């Protein structure tokens, strides 16, 4: 029998329906892979009993001929999705032992579609990071290594557990969230497909908030087709999230024709930046050539405010975080500091938050508090919101000329753990992805090729708001032409 853990969702779906194997056999294969993958530290909570129980239910539905799209498909879930009765800490000690009494809308949708949960996946604390090094669970290790070099590399962040688990065949797909690039950058670093939908496409209810106007959940998958299947299951119009868009969820898989004739693809000149590796530039050109060969027209475009997206983001995201994270006060859930004789409630708040939050989170809360404080609000926060209007306007104008935009996902491939100690150096990871969050648009990273030292690199496609169907179809055509088949060599 083929190795069950290497199948795509689309293949497993038809094989399950054809009774080539059962959901229980599939779940057991993945539970074994998860058990054997501790060296990567991708899972922070394993739920094999729940997986077996859900697989039995899936088998019953398959036997009854009532199998929904993800029936029996084993998934890993990022730690910031609230899962009923299963520890959900958003990678933070301040939520120590938190077991939500409710289920997020996204995971509810996935279980309703028949999926099976293997466990929860590590992440940067409150999704603040680009390397998974701020997680309270310790570093996650990328299954990919440089050629002839055993040093541990980052799987990217913040959804580092999600990217590593998928690349190491410890899940058939995983969920992530993307506030500035936290799905697309890890996907690029691990040779996987990562999709950030339009803001409002996927409900945020039950997802532990970082920056509400930027956060959006999406899938990590092996293929673009799987991404379409996952998005269709995750997305919904949700009464519990008043910002979830009142737009019906289309059949994304049906949009995958690969037809690029008459499509116009924009290449933004501002994305040629200093520090971009020669390989990234070469892959970018290769991607454009492939789309041209399939009948698309390649158009140079300008997004003039690109360079301001990252600094504006580092005002807005911390500002929203300082407000969202005010709820962690040691009263209702999670960690509470041990108090000394005579300590009052303010001491409880301050000590609890000092102990519970990690350094990066504290720094961002303090920056957010500062830019929102009296006397600085207009100079920082309002100015950044105006920049956001200009960034969105750049995209609106570009989309009058083109159907999608092609860029590299990151300037360079995965770096070594501990290699980037300067926060600004780390923030630059999101230089090509953060613009998309600022404008609320959908973006997808598709594996494009290997660097000279054998590491995967990604290309990003950016689409129009709520036009995931066309975005996925363009990604499908690109994936087909790039023929990326490489897998990490198993060392763990």
């Amino acid at each position, binding site marked *: 029998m083929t190795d069950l853990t290497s199948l795509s969702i689309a293949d497993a779906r038809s094989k399950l329906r054809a009774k080539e194997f059962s959901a229980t056999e599939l779940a057991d294969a993945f539970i074994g892979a998860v058990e054997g993958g501790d060296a990567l530290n991708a899972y922070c909570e394993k739920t094999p009993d729940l997986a077996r129980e859900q697989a039995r239910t899936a088998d019953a539905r398959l036997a009854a001929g009532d199998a929904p799209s993800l029936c029996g498909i084993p998934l890993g879930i990022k730690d910031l999705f609230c899962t009923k009765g299963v520890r959900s800490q958003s990678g933070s000690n301040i939520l120590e*032992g*938190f*077991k939500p*009494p409710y289920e997020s809308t996204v995971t509810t949708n996935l279980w309703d579609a028949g999926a099976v949960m293997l466990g929860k996946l590590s992440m940067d604390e409150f999704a603040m990071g680009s390397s998974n090094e701020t997680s309270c669970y310790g570093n996650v290790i990328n299954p990919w290594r440089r050629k002839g070099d055993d040093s541990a590399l980052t799987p990217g962040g913040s959804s580092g557990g999600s990217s590593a688990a998928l690349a190491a065949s410890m899940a058939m797909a995983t969920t992530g969230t993307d506030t500035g690039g936290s799905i697309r950058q890890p996907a690029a670093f691990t040779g996987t497909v990562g999709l950030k939908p339009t*803001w*409002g496409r996927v409900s945020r209810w039950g997802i532990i908030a970082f920056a509400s*106007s*930027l956060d959006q959940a999406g899938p990590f998958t092996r293929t673009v087709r799987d991404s379409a299947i996952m998005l269709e299951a995750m997305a919904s119009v949700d*009464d519990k999230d*008043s*910002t979830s*868009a*009142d737009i019906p969820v289309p059949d994304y898989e049906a949009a995958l024709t690969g037809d690029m004739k008459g499509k116009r693809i924009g290449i933004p000149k501002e994305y040629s930046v200093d520090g971009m590796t020669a390989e990234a530039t070469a892959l970018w050109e290769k991607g454009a050539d492939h789309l041209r060969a399939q009948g698309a027209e390649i158009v140079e475009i300008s997004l003039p405010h690109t360079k*301001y997206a990252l*600094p*504006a983001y*580092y*005002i807005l995201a911390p500002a929203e975080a*300082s407000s969202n994270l*005010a709820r962690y006060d*040691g*009263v*209702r*859930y*999670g*960690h*509470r500091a041990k*108090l000394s004789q005579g300590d*009052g*409630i*303010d*001491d*409880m*708040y*301050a*000590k609890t*938050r*000092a102990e519970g*939050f990690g350094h990066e989170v504290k*720094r961002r*809360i*303090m*920056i957010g*508090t*500062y830019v929102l*404080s009296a006397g600085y609000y207009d100079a*920082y926060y*309002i*100015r950044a*919101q*105006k*920049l*956001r*209007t*200009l960034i969105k306007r750049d995209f609106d104008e570009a989309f009058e000329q083109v159907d999608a935009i092609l860029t590299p996902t990151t300037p360079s491939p995965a770096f070594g753990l501990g290699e980037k100690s300067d*926060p*600004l150096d780390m923030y630059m990871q999101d230089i090509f992805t953060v613009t998309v969050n600022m404008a*609320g648009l959908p973006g997808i990273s598709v594996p494009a090729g290997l660097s000279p030292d054998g590491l995967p690199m990604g290309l990003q496609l950016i689409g129009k*708001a*709520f036009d995931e169907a066309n975005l996925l179809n363009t990604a499908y055509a690109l994936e087909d032409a790039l023929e990326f088949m490489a897998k990490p060599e198993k060392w763990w």
Partner: protein
Amino acid sequence: MSVDAATVRKVAKLARIAVEEDEIEPLANEISGILDWVEQLQEVDVSGVEPMTSAVPMRLKRREDVVTDGDRRDDILANAPDSREGFFAVPKVVE
């Protein structure tokens, strides 16, 4: 340097995060570095530009004003570090 030690102490107090004395100076340096970097936003002419309030233009949804959930006291208290007699418990608050 845009942020000094006194500002760090003030912001830490506003954010309710206890900061040790030896952490103040490094934090001031890091926060200043980041704020100096975002200063480049000042070079953009934003006159006449409206601040963005929503990534996607949408009307806030309305619903019937009816109770849809509730009676979950024990669920709500289940994760509390300290709860007594159906309430969250905190140190004595004296005004």
